């Protein structure tokens, strides 16, 4: 209950409402997702207390999960990567003239997903935090390895490219001064700007702000048309009744799956929503209707992505491991605010943790009301051509990138990361592992070097400590499993080709 007292403090309540509104808006704009909103607006939070700051960012995260569905349904372009699966059935519904039903289904499913996940969060956060107390630098490093391995295993991306991006992110994180000796390291062209290292904010704004917008501009080519739709109270009530009849079990199962996928380090809401879509289709009596405008095809990913967004906060708060790129940025923010994520956070800053949880409850309710009432407004905004939206977003990247360090060096890095990120993205290099690695890099290096110094270079310590061993075995399994799948697929392909030849 103390948490609610914190959540309903005037400043925190105002930050929560503002965050929900901005998140909804950012999530609804194609090319911008919660990760962009959190990355671009992070500098603003340096001017309020840490609890208010994280409430603001978590509200953006929540709002964006709702907002992402809007452009997925109306335009067929996912408003955020987490809403990719929503496009599969949301867009066909809109084409059929059922856009209002799809939007209501998305909002209600998001609300249910968010609520169920907050209940899970409240029940499971303290036990996990207690378990995390047993983590030393050895376990911490092994856990980092597991987080990176989860990205390789669950990402579904090209494995060598994913590994390359993780290693690249780790190297970028080591730019600046050596954490032990204090010597300058990787100071490119002797530019003084590199002495302070490369901030993950700079990388995230470059990749997700400029790079992603370049990508979206290419995809849209400035031509975005909107489906016509109607909206009325009577149709709204009918839709709610239909959802209760047809989708209640789907909402519950998708929320549960999404929450647990969200907890997995580096999995996040996008795989969660896609897995929930797959689960809903495989369990449906009429799977052939999926992809042609089945309301359950909207409900499943939307319930799952909201549940996963809460789930991914849990390992971030209790273990210091982000479950998604957005929480990776939130994690970086917490470190900047002077809050060390991990087991001690619950005992040292209970007002922060429980205030955040209570705010999630409040944000969930506030966002669904906001979402339903703002549907007509968002449609109007989404009618704005990209050629107006894009330059405004580029300016926001510039100002948002300059603000934290008041450095033009960072602004130039944003452009370089944006352009290189765009070119690499065209060749299917995954960007999320890069962001994850630059955030976790300093922690990984610190824990590894601390362990090595303490154990005089004896690496077998990673195999003799039980938690560390379990993490490393799990990591190995996650790396081997996709390789095994690739091999199986190749075999199956050869078997299919053999009779033809």
């Amino acid at each position, binding site marked *: 209950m103390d948490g609610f007292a914190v959540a309903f403090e005037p400043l925190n309540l105002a930050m929560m409402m503002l965050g929900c509104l901005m998140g909804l808006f950012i999530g609804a704009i194609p090319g911008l997702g919660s990760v962009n909103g959190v990355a671009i607006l992070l*500098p*603003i939070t340096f*001017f309020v207390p840490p609890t208010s700051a994280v409430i603001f960012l978590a509200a953006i995260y929540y709002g964006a999960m709702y907002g992402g569905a809007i452009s997925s349904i109306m335009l067929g372009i996912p408003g955020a990567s987490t809403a990719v699966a929503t496009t599969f059935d949301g867009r066909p519904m809109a084409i059929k003239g059922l856009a209002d039903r799809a939007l209501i289904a998305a909002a209600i499913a998001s609300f249910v997903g968010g609520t169920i996940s907050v209940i899970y969060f409240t029940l499971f956060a303290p036990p996990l935090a207690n378990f995390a107390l047993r983590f030393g630098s050895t376990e911490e490093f092994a856990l980092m390895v597991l987080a990176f391995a989860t990205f390789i295993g669950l990402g579904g991306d*090209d494995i*060598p*490219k994913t*590994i*390359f991006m993780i*290693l*690249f992110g*780790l*190297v970028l994180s*080591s730019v600046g001064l*050596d954490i*032990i*000796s204090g*010597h300058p*390291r*990787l100071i*490119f062209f002797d530019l003084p700007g590199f002495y302070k290292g490369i901030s993950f904010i700079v990388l995230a704004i470059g990749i997700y702000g*400029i790079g992603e*917008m*370049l990508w979206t*501009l*290419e995809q849209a*080519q*400035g031509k975005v048309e909107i489906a016509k739709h109607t909206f009325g109270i009577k149709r709204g009530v009918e839709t709610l009744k239909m959802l209760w009849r047809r989708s209640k079990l789907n909402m519950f199962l998708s929320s549960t799956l999404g929450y647990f996928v969200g907890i997995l380090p580096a999995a996040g809401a996008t795989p969660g929503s896609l897995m929930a879509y797959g689960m809903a289709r495989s369990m449906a009596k009429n799977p052939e209707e999926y992809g042609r405008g089945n309301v359950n095809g909207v409900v499943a990913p939307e319930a799952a992505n909201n549940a996963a967004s809460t789930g991914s906060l849990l390992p971030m708060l209790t273990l210091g491991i982000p479950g998604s790129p957005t929480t990776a940025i939130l994690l970086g923010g917490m470190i900047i605010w002077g809050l060390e994520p991990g087991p001690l956070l619950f005992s040292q800053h209970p007002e922060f943790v429980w205030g955040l949880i209570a705010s999630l409850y409040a944000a969930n309710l506030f966002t669904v009301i906001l979402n339903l009432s703002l549907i007509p407004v968002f449609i109007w905004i989404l009618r704005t*051509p990209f*050629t*107006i939206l*894009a*330059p*405004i977003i*580029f*300016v926001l990247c*510039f*100002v948002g990138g*300059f*603000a934290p360090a*008041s450095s*033009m060096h960072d*602004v*130039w890095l944003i*452009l370089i990361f*944006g*352009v290189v990120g*765009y*070119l*690499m993205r*065209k*060749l*299917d290099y995954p960007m999320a592992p890069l962001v994850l690695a630059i955030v976790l890099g300093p922690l990984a*290096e610190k824990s*590894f*070097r601390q362990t*090595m*110094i303490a154990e005089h*270079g004896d690496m077998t310590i990673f195999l003799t400590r039980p938690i560390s061993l379990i993490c490393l075995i799990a990591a190995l399994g996650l790396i081997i499993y996709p390789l095994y799948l690739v091999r199986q697929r190749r075999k199956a392909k050869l078997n299919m080709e053999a009779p033809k030849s």
Partner: protein
Amino acid sequence: MRHAEQIMALALVAFSLFLMWKSSELPIGWVSGKGPGGGAFPFWLSLGMLVASGVIFWRARRRVTPQSRDENSFMGYSTFRLFVVSAGAIFVMFLGTHFVGAYVMIPLFLAFYMRFLGGHSWVVIAPIALLAPIVTFFFFEIGMKVFLPKGVTEPLFYPLYSMFF
């Protein structure tokens, strides 16, 4: 697309080698009493990058990845134009900021982009291009105390500062 995949992989091989060389400016092995040297972490990770980019190149040559089998061009003319104009305009905005400041370059950038790429009328462009720097100034400078670079236009802001601070 196929050539782009190979060229990118080769560029990453070269970049990894550069990072290895750069990391070795600090000790990359074990330093007695101090553990791994300062350059060890980036050096061995760069070696990993080298191996990974080598595998990417090898897979591209063997046409294992979808991109390496794609015979379409990496960038069509319209995409190339969009990319060059967008990235070029951002480059000019950043460069110009060093000399004439953000509050001159932001409206110029917005106006150019919306006019040149969007073909919008001045009636649409003018309010956005003029309001954006005003909102930015009040939100960032007055509200958040974040002062954007102003170049030679700095003295023009002194009266405003004296009004608000």
